[in-house]
């Protein structure tokens, strides 16, 4: 028995990590989605638009930058399954849910920031994403998704460039 353990130590560590990754990763993902859906519902009135031009309804609102950023780590099970998937090709469904969560969480954080400023809408939404940390040649470790845009705040006049002093 001890001999078996010693000989298959690497395999046992692998199975333990994959199992832990699966159980905890699944649980974390489930919890996260519940929280995402709840907050999305709460913040639905805070409009997010990709429009660059200020719509007539928001004319005269103050505009200011708001950003929401999130970093989500891949779990070991997802690394393993994506490693296998990388051999045969096809849809990386393990990463799809990861990035879906990251995008939606980033939007929610941006909306939260805008809500704290009393904004009514966010214009000119942009996404950025980057891979950070822990890859060491083994697929992605964690990803950052950044969402940013212009929060439109009513009741305040937007600072306009003072043309008389410009020249």
């Amino acid at each position: 028995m001890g001999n078996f353990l010693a000989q298959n130590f690497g395999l046992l560590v692998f199975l333990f990590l994959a199992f832990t990754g699966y159980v905890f990763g699944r649980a974390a993902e489930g919890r996260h989605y519940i929280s995402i859906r709840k907050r999305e519902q709460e913040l639905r009135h805070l409009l997010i638009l990709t429009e660059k031009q200020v719509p007539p309804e928001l004319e005269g609102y103050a505009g200011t930058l708001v950003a929401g950023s999130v970093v989500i780590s891949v779990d070991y099970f997802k690394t393993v399954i994506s490693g296998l998937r990388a051999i045969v090709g096809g849809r990386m469904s393990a990463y799809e849910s990861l990035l879906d969560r990251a995008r939606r969480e980033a939007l929610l954080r941006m909306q939260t920031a805008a809500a704290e400023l009393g904004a009514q809408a966010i214009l000119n939404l942009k996404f950025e994403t980057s891979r950070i940390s822990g890859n060491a040649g083994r697929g992605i470790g964690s990803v950052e998704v950044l969402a940013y845009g212009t929060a439109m705040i009513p009741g305040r006049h937007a600072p306009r460039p003072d043309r008389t002093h410009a020249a």
Partner: protein
Amino acid sequence: MLPEENPRPPEHINNPPGNPLLEFCQLLAGISVMLVAFVAVTALAASYLAPYIPYRWEPTAFHDLETPEEFQSAQTELQALVDELAVAMSVPAKMHVQVHLIDGEPNAFASLGGQILVTAAALQGLTSENGLAMVLAHEIAHLKRRHPIAGVGRGVVISVVLNAVFGASASGSAAALIGQTGGRLTEFSFSRSMERRADRDALAAVVARYGHSRGAYEFFQNMLGKRAEASWQLMFSTHPMTEQRIAAIRAQEELNRGRDLVPLSAAISALVNSDSGHGPVLE
């Protein structure tokens, strides 16, 4: 016109539902099947091609093996018998077949560089030269047909393929692995067809030498007596269907009823009849 509120994100588009465990199992099964098929084909190719490696490139394993003092004279006689058999079996002259008598579990095997290793325990209980000649001829047939290099070639190729697939980090670099395989020359195995061919050659050689095949089965019979079929898988795992082989040899025996057996030479005879601590190691 501004919308009333943000649309609810559709759940099934960017993150379609699916069972990751099921996907994992499908991927694992599919890739395993492909890998096994690939390794099998490569290994087969290697064992067919390896015998084309020039014989002089074969490393000589065990050439510096020291024979225990009490085995010296028996080994000289074994070597004489091997030399005669090698000539009779038309082994190429450049392939110098060398036999070593060693301590250890009952076993006899052929290895790279024309080496045959026989343990003293394997000889215990032999009564005639015929049985001994059968074993030695069997190992010589392996050497003549270049089976050791085929076995090693197959082993190396399997290691390299597995290493390439699973990454070098798991078990050291490919080069180290080849080195390891080279160091474990006795761990390669012969296939069943190799064993059958060696058996056929050996029986032909024994018949050519003694004019009959009586007593040829003695060694195998002896091995069966020493260890149960299941437990001597360890050493004879690649010598399949021993009962069947003995039956085949015995069928010929019927034709040889009453033929004389050749007694063992003096030193070997002394060795197999001694109880001086070199008896068969039983498990």
